[in-house]
């Protein structure tokens, strides 16, 4: 398993796309911090990148990578290696290399320019989103055999998490405007890792006071260490759930 993991990791790190991705993130982060007059504003611009670009790149790159290495997987399956370890080392390789890319591209600039609790939370959430969207990509690639359809599904999933889900929440909010929805919103935020990450970062950013009563409830829930633990647990579930589903599928898959 270690060998496969090492091979996948080295393969991806040498991949041109990942190198470009790292470089792009690095350029964006540095330019954001140097162009904005105060670093807090730069952090805000980075927020959009973490919440939109990072999941998109992660999910699409991972899906394509898995499809492209189907021959390699078939070869490995022929060897006396457990299917579980093949799949998990594939996941591990993807997740750790993309996390590394994110850390170099965004993490280091943040640590240089804005190394406070907000910055740390941002890095943590970016890493979580990277791993979660690799895991979701594994799920998409695991359940669909056709490459085009698989990539389509992963784009759809990204669209769902970053746009459609929020649109539905907004719709629900207006449909049930007359009811107290604050606590329900806390529950809803757990159904979408991007929302969960965004709320955690925003609460760190000291703009919770803007949110009035809703903000107070959010802060009451997410603001203390227990809330942070629970939301981290929620994010862990988001990593494990799609991964285990796809693993189950892969184990019985007719390659």
């Amino acid at each position: 398993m270690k060998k496969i993991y090492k091979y996948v990791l080295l393969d991806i790190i040498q991949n041109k796309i990942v190198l470009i991705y790292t470089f792009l993130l690095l350029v964006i982060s540095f330019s954001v911090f140097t162009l904005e007059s105060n670093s807090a504003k730069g952090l805000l611009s980075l927020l959009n990148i973490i919440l939109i670009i990072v999941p998109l790149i992660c999910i699409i790159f991972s899906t394509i990578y898995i499809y492209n290495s189907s021959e390699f997987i078939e070869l490995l399956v022929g060897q006396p290696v457990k299917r579980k370890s093949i799949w998990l080392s594939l996941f591990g390789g993807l997740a750790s290399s993309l996390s590394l890319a994110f850390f170099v591209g965004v993490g280091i600039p943040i640590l240089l320019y804005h190394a406070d609790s907000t910055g740390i939370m941002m890095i943590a959430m970016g890493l979580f989103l990277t791993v979660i969207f690799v895991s979701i990509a594994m799920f998409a690639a695991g359940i669909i055999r056709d490459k085009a359809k698989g990539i389509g599904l992963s784009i759809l999933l990204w669209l769902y998490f970053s746009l459609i889900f929020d649109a539905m929440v907004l719709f629900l909010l207006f449909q049930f405007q007359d009811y107290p929805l604050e606590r329900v919103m806390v529950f809803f935020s757990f159904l979408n890792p991007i929302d969960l990450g965004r709320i955690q970062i925003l609460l760190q950013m000291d703009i919770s006071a803007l949110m009035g009563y809703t903000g107070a409830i959010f802060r009451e829930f997410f603001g203390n260490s227990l809330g942070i633990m629970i939301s981290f647990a929620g994010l862990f579930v988001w990593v494990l759930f799609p991964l285990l589903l796809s693993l189950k599928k892969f184990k019985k898959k007719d390659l």
Partner: protein
Amino acid sequence: MKKVLYTLVMVCLVALCAKGKTIRVGKLKPFKSIQAAIDFSVNGDTILVDPGLYKEKNIIIQKSVTLKGIGFPVLDGDKKYAIISVKAKNVLIEGFKLQRTGRSEIRDLGAIMIYDSYKVSAINNILDDTNFGIYVQNSKKCTIKDNSITAYGKNELQSGNGIHCWRSDSLIIIGNKIKGHRDGLYFEFVKNSLIWRNVSTKNVRYGIHFMFSNRNTYIGNIFESNEAGVAVMYSKNIHMYNNHFLNNWGDAAYGILLKDITDSEISGNYFTKNTVGLHMEGCSRINLYKNTFNNNGWAVKIQASCDGNDFTGSNFVGNTFDIGTNGSLVLNTFTGNYWDKYEGYDLGRDGIGDVPYHPVSMYSMIIDSNPAALMLFRSLIVSLLDKTEKILPGVTPESLRDDKPVMKRIPL
């Protein structure tokens, strides 16, 4: 010749008497207690107090005397009494340290209480751990200057106001530093007064709070980090110039809240890092110009109940939302301001944008009607909706716009 000399001496003596004699108070001086010295004095006398600790229950001044401390003698209220009560005109209190006043549920106890007087001055005193600091009631032409007033209020019910003025006229309040009271400055029925260069910080409720106080001028004051910011109500002809409203951050904190303020002028003020910089409710005919709104949650929240207010020549920079409102009726005007979120162009190169700017974002309207929607703050869907709304206004009030937005930040 002798007679002439005698008359001359007499004249001099009379003149001296009119100027008043000086009475010394201190351990080694004729008078041990301040109250005794005051009882002995006549109008126009000066009482000089040596350094030391004086524990006298509520010194009452009923003569026009000057009370001066040398090296800040300490007057202690023992946590039971008011310290000085003034009930005469032309009194000056200067250079004392007044500490530990009492607190009562029935009476307002403070360090310097001024009742029904005329031309009373409190200058350069240090007030520490007071319930009410300086309390002016039914008085005219009083001067409160360069006092440092500190309390350690825990909640609104248990503490008093720093400078509390009720039903007074022509007060001058300059250069005081107030901290930790309920309201730093509190005015009710105060007219024609000048409030200049005061610093009011970290109070339990408001930095300044006034009601029914017309024709007052506020210049160069700093109101910072007060629990609920600043709130002023039911007044006319207010002039506010070059004040700073800073760091009032919290669920119900406002840089300044204006309720039913009319015919006033607000200019050159700085609103920085407040949850809501300026909140207006039921205000009419206020001229707001050359103000600076920096890094607020909402720079301005203007309720639909306001009319005839005019915003010109102001800078709006780094605010999360520029303007928030709660209805579609707009009776106020916005012209020639600088908005850092403005994305228009200036073909004529005259420094004025060619397309109007709509400072109300759709999302701020959504939040106003549905606060729970804040869960979606800064999400992709919200920015998309905002962008579409900017192009085709549907929800936001179409008439709330700046037709002549300035392209570059206005130097203020």
